[in-house]
């Protein structure tokens, strides 16, 4: 369903685009080429402008719809400062409206370039308006929940079918066995007798089994082992929350940001290479991009709400600001001191080593057990990367005297001592 609606959307978009272009061709200057204009627009204007929404600068669609004096516009785009300096009333008005933040001067754009851009903006704005006027493609919303139900039912179905198959197979095996026995002519009577008995005393079989000491011993042994190993594992894993994946207040996807977009970890987690805390990014980091990117998404609006930010006026209202309460996934106990920079900068350990393939996680979960055993294992097995680090020169030399040629691990440098992490 989703696909269908998507294809439909794509299709209608292209139809509209063609229609829009045709319309533009009719109305706009014969020389103006919206396609060329689009290229220039994307290269020079998108940093501050959008067609339909106000960003740093005004929303260009409505602006250019209202302003029809192309000569003025060309002058403005090419050198707005000159217009302001000349005290052009229109120029001054908009200059003041936008807190006297001057627009970049584009002296390099020729009149034709500017005309192309204007043509593109007007065409695109018209298309967007028409897009809005059309009712949203139905079904897309309803389809949202479809797949998950389908999966669940599908799974249930598979389980039920598998169960039935097992039962049937069991039955077949039993029938075949009986056939085999019948064929050899053995135990026919006994079985019939037994069957009669079963009817009389349902527990006879159990009673009989209980008399078999070897069987009882075997079952008890199996039970003990099973229970033992179960409790062993459970107890060992008390308070180990490997796989812990709480629901976060914002559906943030590492898969998208770190995976698809390939944003460096430390762009957001600034502390990871500097401090003991990797630190969750503050919202101003999000706003570096999301002031412009995906501004319509309800998840992004959660950021805006938290900041008290109004995307229309682009103003922050700190009285409405409310910090976002993320749920902490990696909970190291207070008694253990862990420093990120020690591991990432000095140890040159990849984030993924402890946090898993974070760039593939839609939602983050605790990848590592975060137990002391896990820490120690790594400290015992990892070779320290001391080459080229002046700090380690003497230390490695001193160490070489004691243990020649062995791989130097943190453990050998005292990395297993209590007070390296507990103080």
């Amino acid at each position, binding site marked *: 369903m989703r696909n269908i609606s998507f294809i439909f959307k794509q299709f209608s978009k292209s139809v509209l685009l063609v229609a829009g272009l045709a319309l533009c061709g009719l109305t706009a200057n014969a020389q103006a080429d919206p396609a060329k204009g689009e290229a220039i627009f994307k290269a020079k204007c998108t940093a501050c402008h959008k067609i339909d929404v106000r960003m740093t600068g005004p929303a260009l669609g409505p602006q250019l719809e209202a302003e029809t004096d192309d000569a003025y516009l060309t002058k403005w785009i090419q050198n707005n400062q000159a217009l302001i300096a000349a005290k052009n009333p229109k120029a001054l008005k908009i200059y003041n409206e936008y807190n006297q933040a001057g627009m970049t001067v584009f002296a390099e754009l020729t009149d034709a370039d500017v005309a192309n851009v204007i043509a593109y903006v007007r065409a695109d704005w018209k298309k967007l308006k028409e897009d809005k006027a059309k009712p949203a493609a139905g079904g897309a919303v309803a389809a949202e929940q479809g797949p998950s139900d389908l999966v669940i039912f599908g799974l249930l179905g598979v389980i039920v079918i598998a169960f039935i198959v097992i039962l049937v197979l069991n039955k077949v095996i039993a029938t075949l066995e009986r056939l085999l026995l019948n064929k050899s002519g053995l135990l026919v009577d006994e079985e019939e007798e037994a069957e009669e008995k079963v009817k009389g005393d349902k527990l006879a079989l159990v009673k009989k089994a209980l008399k078999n000491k070897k069987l009882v011993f075997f079952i008890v042994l199996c039970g003990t082992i099973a229970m033992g190993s179960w409790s062993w594992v459970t107890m060992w894993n008390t308070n180990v929350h490997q796989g812990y994946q709480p629901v976060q207040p914002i559906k943030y996807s590492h898969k998208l940001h770190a995976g698809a977009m390939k944003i460096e970890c430390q762009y957001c987690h600034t502390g990871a290479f500097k*401090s003991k805390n990797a630190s969750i990014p*503050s919202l101003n980091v999000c706003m570096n991009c999301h002031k412009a990117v995906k501004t319509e998404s309800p998840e992004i609006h959660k950021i805006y709400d938290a*900041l008290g930010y109004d995307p229309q006026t682009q103003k922050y209202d700190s009285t409405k600001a409310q910090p976002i309460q993320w749920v902490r996934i990696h909970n190291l106990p207070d008694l253990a001191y862990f420093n990120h920079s020690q591991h990432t900068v000095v140890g040159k350990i990849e984030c993924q080593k402890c946090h898993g393939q974070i760039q593939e996680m839609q939602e983050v979960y605790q990848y590592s057990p975060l137990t002391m055993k896990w820490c120690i294992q790594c400290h015992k097995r990892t070779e320290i990367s001391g080459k080229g680090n002046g*700090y380690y020169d003497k230390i490695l030399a001193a160490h070489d005297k004691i243990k020649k040629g062995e791989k130097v691990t943190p453990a050998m440098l005292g990395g297993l*001592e209590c007070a390296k992490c*507990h103080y």
Partner: protein
Amino acid sequence: MDSNKKYWKGLEELNRTPEFVEKNRHEFAEPIPIEEVLSGGGLSAKTPRRDFLKALGFGVGAVTLAACQKVPVHKSIPYLVKPEEITPGIANYYSSTYEGSAILVKTREGRPIKVEGNPGDLLSKGGLSAQAQASVLELYDNSRAQGPLLNGTATGWPQLDKFVKDELAAIKAGGKKISLVTSTVHSPSTLAVIADFITAFPTASHVTYDAVSYTGIIQANKNSFGKAVVPHYNFDKAKVIVSFGADFLGTWISGEEFTTQYVQNRNSKALEEKKDMSRHIQFESGMSLTGTNADVRLPIKPSEDGLAIINLYNALNPAGALPGAKKLTNANADKAIILAAKELQKAGAGKALVVSGSNDVSVQTVVNAINSLLGSYGSTIDLDNPSRQYAGNDTDWLQFVADAKSGAVDAVFFLDANPVYDFYIAKDIEAALSKVRLKVTFSDRADETAALCNVVAPNHHYLESWGDDSAVEGYYTIVQPTINPVNNTRQAEESLLVWSDNAVKSYYTYLRNNWDKNLLAKGGLSGQKGWEALLQKGFINATAVTPGTYNFTLSLGGVAQTILNNSSKVTASGDGGFELQVYQTPAMRDGKKANNPWLQELPDPVSKVTWDNFAAMSPADVKKMGLDEFQVISIKGANGYSVDLPVLSQPGQAVGSISVAVGYGRTAAGLVGNNVGKNAYPFYNLLSGTFQTVSAVTVAKTSTIFPLSQTQTHHSFEGRNVIREATLVEYQKDPAAGSGKEGEHEGFYDLWENSPHDKPVYDWVMAIDLNACTGCGACVVACSAENNIPVVGKDEVGRRREMHWIRIDRYYSYEQNGDAKTDGRTGMVTKEKDIDKLVNFDNVTVVHQPMLCQHCDHAPCETVCPVLATTHSSEGLNMMAYNRCVGTRYCANNCPYKVRRFNWFNYWNDSRFDNYLSNEHTQLVLNPDVTTRFRGVMEKCSMCVQRIQAGKLKAKIEKRPLADGEVKVACQQTCSANAIVFGNRNDPNSEVSKALKSERTYYVLEELNVKPGIGYQVKVRNTLSELQA
């Protein structure tokens, strides 16, 4: 080597009282009642099957239920908009100023958590006093005012401003006086604000009132040399120092600064380079911190202080001898004065210094005359770059009280002054204030004075303020805020600007203007860049004026007569008559910080008493009056004020005198400081127009006993010889004198021969110079702040459960005069007669020894831990894993140094302890890099392992070896005397390696072969041998 000297921590140890012997038999003051259980009904009692099953069932059920508890969900809340300079997990340091000393404030995630000295500070060179260390806790004090009060009810600032402005306008129209009463202000910008205020209200005047006054010195200098200042003293230039009751290493003018100066001529470096040290002779009545450090200390009665100074003058200048000289009661002191005069003259011009703690103008005038004779001016005393630390004027203040009483004052503003508590005639101030129309206090809390004021306009804590300071002429420091105001407070200067309708209403702008206009240029700075450079550095140091020499030319005849007259007024007479001297303790000082639990729990450097003040009497007087230890006596002053205080036998106290500390007995300090001890300010006395700390009192016995929590004999060494001492003469003959290196210990065996502790890279050790340590206790508070050490309160301290990781052991001793019959090893005084010979304990000497975990290589604690909670690291540290500890306390039992501390309670979450750890607000001061410890867990000095780790990490990230001195432990950092050196013994060039190679180095209880990691350097005393002969 065992010397003939006996060391003891308290008289109970010396006398081996039965209580002491009993208490010291056990490691812990209160044994677990295991004996009772075993012998009594405990084991033989039958446990019915049903009870057993019930208990079992309940246990299983409870455990199951407890286990069912959901793991708590931890929220992680990042900044909305992270300030650029903050990285969570990394501390930021800001330069600021504490009472004129440049400091660095360590903040984590926007909250100040520790105060550290600025290494470039002119005064203390990076050291800090206990009070400064504790000041960060006051920021989070719950007893601080939450907001402004108008007639006792909470109000807002606009309403308050309107009220005060209206009142001021009316008062201005009325034309009566307006008084701004402050304790000494040495901030140039605050002084400018006050001057502006006075311009706006011409009837206003500035009255400087110090609870502890130095008017005597200021007035004497005015009379003698025409300079009404407290001079800047240079103890570093003095070869011979004679002090009459001036506690210059502790509370007198600028203790930290004088400590750095004083130690320069006495520490390892001075001894090794010059083979010489300064000589310090102290005449005083109560044992002060400075007295404990003196080479020669002589107790004199408080009333004879002036007489002693006259005698010294006469000895120095026999030709112009002053009339009225008499012999002192203490014949030894008389002898010492003659010797001191000789020493002073021998030192040479400009190499001697005589100081007096008296606030009597006449006494200080004679002192000036003496210093002039010795040529001190221009060398050891600098009158041209004076100190601004105290400028209180007693006359001005008394004039104000008189004016107010007569109804001539209509408005009064109290800034950093609390006269209702600390003025000696409370009645007068109350009467005076009742006649004043507008009474404003800027106090940060509803203190005693605030109770009588109609406006409380709470001031910021200094860590929330902008400001500046100038403790010494030419030295300017900056105060910058390190946190947003915690409460709804406003800076006092800003209030004054607002109320006087100044053109500049923001104090920050005012400060900037003042610096741009007047001060930046003094440090060769200018403009925005200059301001930023100042904020970065914290201070500017204008080129000092070359101090000029001054000659004393006045006639002293009348002065001497005044001294004798005053002396006779405070001379006690009759039965139960005593001379009472009030003094400041280094921890509590004038009592303004009485609400600070770190300071209350810091044992007094001399008496080792916590959480109380007391009446210190000489053991002879105690015996004469038939008093028991801590028996309460009733002391009645001449003005009728009477107070009940427990008695403390203080060796070294002058016979016939009593010393009581001020700063206690606050009634409105806050939860911590209220009703701790008794107020001693009312014992002040007014003589010749200045406050005197001495008065004649009568003493009566009462039958109550009020036990003090005194830590002196906690953690006993059972008389083992842990102090090593030598005289300078012995040291000059043999640098190893007294260090016990006479080859006594031979053939050590090693239990761990086959598994030695390898320390391939680092071996963290410490060297403590007993000759530099003054015993002030700043390290104890610094350690508490750094390591989240709980405050346990008076009751728990009384049970020997104080938690300090470092303590200063104070040992008294006396020379046995060559009597070697006593059993040296145990240090017991075997002959009863020996004690009797010590009639008045006049000649006791004191040694301070900082004692902390010695990080032994063969640590006795490690071998007895059944769960391996305490182990040895490859860097020579004795590690303590709290979470592994099960609390058997074997380690504490087996530690010969008694430095392990047991968490008897869950101090950070126990309603019985209103501890700073357990309060959500004050918790903010905790160091996030150190865990708080749970009940039932042992703890001890970790050698600030968090700092070692952080230092190593920084070096690793910067790809360079760790430099020596880069990691400083908290106690070392705060020590103005630089008595503690910490570092890597594996590095032969490190400071600590060099220090440990000194011939004076010895290890405490070396003979046990525990191989301690802390080396002490023998105490060397520059004694006056002629005095003993």
